[in-house]
């Protein structure tokens, strides 16, 4: 059987390339062009003047800060099944379960805390959740605090975050 062999051309072997200087000249021409363009009009540089300008291109697949979703009656959707804490590769989710008294479900978390200093924002907790109770669609990408304790998000904080996309309530628990 005749094999098809694609010969990739090799550059840099002939005499002109071995002089280096023509290639260096060409490279310098490109960088100098960029330098002159940006020096003559620095506002044409396509960057964000963060923090005055905030990013506008956060898509619905962006993994921002976590939130706990609500049912349609604005109660917590989580049933404290510990799936997320089990799936978490960095062991940053702490859950204490308690009995749910309002009759909607049997269990709910009494304490649900995420240590965002440990979290690697992999999104496995979102994938693992059977109740669509934890999501990362808040679009929050920066967390600020003065002490380590400030970065441990408690249940109330996680519930207070809202999604920035259309889906607000848990799809699994009505």
């Amino acid at each position, binding site marked *: 059987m005749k094999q098809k062999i694609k010969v990739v051309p090799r550059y840099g072997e002939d005499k002109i390339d071995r002089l280096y200087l023509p290639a260096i000249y060409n490279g310098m021409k490109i960088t100098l062009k960029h330098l002159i363009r940006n020096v003559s009009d620095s506002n044409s540089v396509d960057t964000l*003047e963060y923090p005055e300008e905030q990013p506008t291109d956060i898509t619905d697949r962006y993994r921002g800060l976590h939130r706990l979703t609500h049912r349609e009656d604005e109660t917590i959707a989580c049933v404290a099944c510990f799936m997320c804490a089990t799936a978490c590769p960095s062991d940053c989710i702490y859950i204490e379960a308690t009995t749910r008294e309002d009759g909607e479900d049997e269990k709910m978390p009494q304490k649900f805390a995420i240590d965002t200093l440990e979290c690697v924002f992999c999104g496995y907790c979102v994938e693992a959740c059977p109740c669509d109770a934890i999501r990362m669609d808040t679009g929050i990408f920066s967390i600020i605090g003065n002490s380590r304790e400030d970065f441990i998000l408690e249940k109330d904080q996680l519930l207070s975050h809202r999604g920035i996309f259309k889906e607000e309530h848990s799809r699994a628990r009505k």
Partner: protein
Amino acid sequence: MTLAAIVVSIISFVLGALLALLMIPVLVWLERRGAGLIQDRLGPNRTNVGGFRLGGVVQSFADVVKLLLKEEYYPSHIKRDRWLLIISPMITFVAALLAFMVIPFADNITIAGESLPIQPLPVDYGVLWYLAIGAVGAIGIFFGGWLSHNKYSLLGSSRAGSMMISYELPLGISVIAFVLTYNSIDFNSMVAWQSGTVLGFLPAWGIIVQPLGAIILIISLFAETNRAPFSVSEGESEIVAGYMTEYTAMKFAMYFMGEYVAMNTASAVIITMVFGGYQLPWVSTEYLLSHFSYLAMGLMVVIPIVVYFVIGWMRKNNAVRPTVISDGSREFEAKVLSIVLVGMTILIEVILLYLILSPSTLGSAIAVTLLQVVTFVVKLMIFNLFFILVRWTLPRFRYDQVQHLGWYYLLPLSLLNLFVTAIVIVGVA
């Protein structure tokens, strides 16, 4: 020694120290901003003192404060000879600084019949001084790398050493060719030689008289300063940070600043030997002195035009985009700087007008000297910018490629250049 000689030598010494030391923060800033703008970023532009950002230069001073406040850390495996660990960056720094001190910033100024050099160290063997003292800088790198007791440091310093050996040869030989051409080892007479013309219309700069020698000189000096594309001695991708691996805080900063001083020195040597030094092209110092009133009138026209464009550029670029609400007092800064620039222009215009109306030899001599210093600084900045541009354009050479280039290309080419130069000079004589 007359009073004038003492004053001129003190002024030129202060000028040399300022040009070498004050250039460090400016070069660090220029490198970071330049890198950013080349890569379509902005670079550091936020740090300010009372709203004055000066394009971000203030960032360098914040960096210095940070480096001074950092912990003085010594690796525990370095038991003895810690003082050498501190001394070695200083050797590099001081060698680069001393090598800068023989560069003439302007032509000899004649005050009351006495010719006084504008050179911090007024020696007439500047080339030898530069070659001797500039090579000492490598010793600091050997000591630092060897004393660190670290294989990466040792590799880095051995690379620096072998590169120094392979590039000192083409550098020295190309310098000999220049010495033959200019018939002098004094930087000042080299510049004086270059103030003429060749073929009637081209400035007699080294790059035009000796193109091959000039290219070899520039490449070798790039290698001497350990900068990209010859930064194999600190190749992060292979040997962490080379000889600087175990260095922290101000000790590291000494190496870092030494690199910038060495780059500044190399730029100064290149422009002095190859690009006409402090001279404007086509005109010599005697011509400038004898036609001073025309020169002053020309400057009176040129300076306001330059300042007008600088202010326009500043007002355009020292502004935030319309999407940003707070402008961080940039408009105020641009206004104050414009007023300062206009005030300085008016002052210079008045002084020039005074010199035209009541001509005096002393006044015109000082004015021509200042003009040459400004020319020197502008050329120096352009060449430093060239260094920066090269660093952010070219990838790092592999270590064997560096040696290959040095021994197989530059050394034979520089020998050829030397032979051709010698034959031509003997033939002309």
